């Protein structure tokens, strides 16, 4: 008999004019010891289902129809007070970001004991004892000592273990995990998924895992439900859905997942997915503005050459220089990027890959080493004119499309700003003609220029960022995790756009990502970083086929296995 049963659940958000239905007629059930994955893109309503089960719908959300049962007992119509007793005790929840889901001012012990005393008939010392056992169960070393510590003293992965311990401490029968590994590195993700699977079987709980990541679904779920705009479009056993999807949406979703195993020329364009761009205007580089007056001297050899870069950050200041303590963010990093090439940097958080980008763009001044761009040394440039000329040639695309655009400026002004700053257009009319052209070219249409950034979705904003980066007619683009905040279908579009632009404009790119599959699709050569060191640099294909360094091998082995994903619809594409 299934522990959690959801029958015909409809969740509505009544608005002033009309009622928005976030989830429509969803029917699911989970057996003890099993994991059900709910997958979909942002706005699909997957989190809404989880929140409805635990009774924490955001205002003014309400359950419009349907029933939810835990162990045959109906819970969706319970009064608030009863529902509160249920939360934690019978239904636990794990949140996405371990860095923000623990109260920073209370010790781990306090938070565990407080929760247990609320739900279990234990004395305080028994609860303290159990807190230590729980930390041990979720794999935290020295639990007796660490239980007294505060959340900030744990690393991200360890904090997620604490979160899991907290969610499980009152022995709930149902656990809802909302994007439990999205904020974590690959290696930590693998550990956490393994832990969740183990605890699920050991404690015989029914687990509902909400995620946008097909890799997570493929890795741990027994059943999977695919949601699209509030509707449950496909539901069944994982290997069946992923291996032989029947619904069009599921097929396109799977097709959009970057393949870790084979390099394809372009990501399949998925027409089922909303918001895909119009086919954008082709340009002839010889006559177009973007191609004109690219007064750059051609280089022989590498366009960018980084040699023995060191970067130290002061962590503890002192009067006497030798007592000062530093953190080495980069240690003797060297690599070359050839003109027209895409060079990938891959590594986990804290490996120093973004620091490399900041040193190249001159945002950080390196503690040692040199950066040569087109034969010119960058770190010692002092003449402001030269610095400006250099900056014009290299532009950056940032990770977060929400915070990298000024929300008080119109899109056309955002894109026009670099043109005006570098005085690339003689008149205002010409400037805005160029801007309209650029917006057309990245697939937004010139009408977009009159709007403000908040009127666009994440993917569209990233297109604005790209248009802004192109506005100075650069020859070198630095992309720092350009798609990691985006849904897979949107990611596929943006990556295709970058590839198209590179083909047309002959751009050279430094592409930073933590996602190996994306790296494989995008980069000619790739460097692997860990703890500020560049461990190996190889042709991307060779890196994936015959990794040299042990860490690269480990990273590759930790990639969620996608073998069961259906690739049938792709085979023609590759061929």
């Amino acid at each position, binding site marked *: 008999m299934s522990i959690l049963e959801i029958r015909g659940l409809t969740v509505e958000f009544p608005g002033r004019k009309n009622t928005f239905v976030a989830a429509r007629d969803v029917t699911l059930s989970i057996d003890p010891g099993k994991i059900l994955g709910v997958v979909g893109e942002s706005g699909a309503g997957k989190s809404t289902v989880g929140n409805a089960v635990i009774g924490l719908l955001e205002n003014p959300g309400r359950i419009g129809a349907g029933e939810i049962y835990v162990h045959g007992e109906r819970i969706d119509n319970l009064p608030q007070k009863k529902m509160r007793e249920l*939360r934690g005790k019978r239904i636990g929840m794990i949140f996405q970001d371990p860095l*923000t*889901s623990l109260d920073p*001012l209370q010790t781990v012990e306090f938070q565990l004991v407080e929760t247990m005393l609320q*739900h279990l008939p234990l004395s305080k010392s028994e609860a303290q004892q159990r807190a230590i056992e729980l930390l041990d169960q979720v794999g935290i070393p020295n639990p007796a000592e660490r239980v007294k510590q505060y959340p900030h003293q744990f690393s991200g992965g360890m904090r997620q273990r604490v979160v899991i311990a907290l969610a499980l401490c009152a022995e709930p029968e149902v656990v809802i995990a909302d994007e439990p590994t999205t904020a974590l590195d690959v290696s930590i993700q693998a550990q956490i998924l393994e832990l969740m699977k183990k605890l699920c079987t050991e404690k015989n709980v029914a687990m509902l895992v909400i995620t946008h990541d097909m890799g997570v679904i493929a890795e741990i779920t027994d059943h999977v439900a695919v949601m699209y705009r509030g509707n449950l479009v496909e539901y069944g056993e994982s290997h069946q859905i992923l291996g032989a999807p029947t619904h069009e949406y599921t097929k396109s979703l799977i097709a959009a997942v970057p393949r870790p195993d084979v390099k394809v020329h372009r990501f399949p364009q998925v027409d089922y997915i909303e918001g895909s761009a119009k086919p954008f205007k082709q340009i002839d580089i010889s006559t177009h503005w973007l191609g004109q007056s690219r007064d750059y001297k051609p280089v022989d050899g590498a366009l960018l050459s980084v040699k023995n870069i060191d970067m130290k950050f002061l*962590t503890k200041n002192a009067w006497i220089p030798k007592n000062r303590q530093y953190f080495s963010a980069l240690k003797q990093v060297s690599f070359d990027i050839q003109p027209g090439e895409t060079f990938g940097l891959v590594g986990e958080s804290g490996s120093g890959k973004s620091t490399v980008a900041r040193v190249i763009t001159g945002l950080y001044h390196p503690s040692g080493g040199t950066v040569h761009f087109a034969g010119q040394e960058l770190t010692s440039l002092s003449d402001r004119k030269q610095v400006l000329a250099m900056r014009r040639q290299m532009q950056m695309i940032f990770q977060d499309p929400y915070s990298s655009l000024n929300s008080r400026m119109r899109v056309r002004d955002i894109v026009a700003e670099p043109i005006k700053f570098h005085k690339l257009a003689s008149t205002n009319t010409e400037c805005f003609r160029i801007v309209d052209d650029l917006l057309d070219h990245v697939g937004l249409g010139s009408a977009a220029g009159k709007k403000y950034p908040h009127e666009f979705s994440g993917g569209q904003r990233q297109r604005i960022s790209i248009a802004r980066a192109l506005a100075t007619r650069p020859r070198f683009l630095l992309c720092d995790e350009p798609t990691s905040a985006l849904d897979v279908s949107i990611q596929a579009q943006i990556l295709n756009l970058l590839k198209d632009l590179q083909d047309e404009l002959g751009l050279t790119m430094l592409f930073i990502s933590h996602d190996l599959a994306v790296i494989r699709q995008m980069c000619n050569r790739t460097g692997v970083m860990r703890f500020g060191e560049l461990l190996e640099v190889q042709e991307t294909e060779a890196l994936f086929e015959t990794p040299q360094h042990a860490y690269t091998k480990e990273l590759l082995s930790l990639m969620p296995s996608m073998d069961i994903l259906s690739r049938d619809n792709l085979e023609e594409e590759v061929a």
Partner: protein
Amino acid sequence: MFGFISRRLVMAVVVMFVVALISFMLFRFVGDPINQMVGIETTPEQREALRERLGLNDPIIIQFARFIMGALQFDFGNSYQFKQPVAELIAKRLPATLELSFVSALFALVVGVPMGVYTGLNRHSPLSKLFLTVSLIGVSLPTFFIGILLIFLFSVHLQWLPSFGRGDVVAIGDWWTTGFLTLSGLKALILPSITLGLFQMTLIMRLIRAEMLEVIRTDYIKFARARGLPDRSIHFVHALKNTMVPVITITGLQLGSIIAFAIITETVFQWPGMGLLFLQAVQNVDIPIMAAYLMLTAFIFVVINLAVDILYVVIDPRLRTERSGL
């Protein structure tokens, strides 16, 4: 922790030194002190003798050193108008001001914090809207006007509370007098402390409300709800404590200004405190009192700032490791 406090103490000493320099400058540049002390009929010879006796002909450095030495022993010289040691005058007035400040700070906290929590949690309830409207009055009306309004309503019209003075006071020890122990003393405290504390109360309330709105949306509060913790624990143990760091900063600074700038309230209510003394000193160009008052104010602010910095560390464990690195 020890290193942190000692660094802070060094900074405090530097601040006090600079303030002492400014206070000392008052003597040099705000009129000739001799003119303030003597009458019209004093001969130039007598003036010169007095000047010599007071050490006003010594080099400035020596005079400043003497001032500092005196300040360290709470000796700020004699008041020009009262012909009494300044330290004594201030000590006599200090209890009145401190008691008034203490009560109004207490009033601001005891009323402001719960109101802030309530309005933060129940944004749309009618009571929240009422609180916010009232607080707007507190922020926008000038202190003296509120004082006069309260006097008019409760002293003149209803005749419930006295309109001026401290009422009967009881002496404790040599120099402390308190109004806490008599009924008339307590009654006399009510109106001035409300007047003085109203602005701080509304400030604290609005600050806590804004912080609460922020904190209540965080993941750890959602997670606390998802664990089924009772509202009381979520609101007061988890949410309120997380709003405290900015609130303490502002409250600390405000407490300093309550003590230092009680002048207006003390004038309106004829409260025999330091503010009134200072005002009279300004009117009579009584420089020693002004200098001492300046030093005392600076001292109060420095002490409060130090306390605030230590409180940060007590409240937020994240600062315990980071602070040591500063």
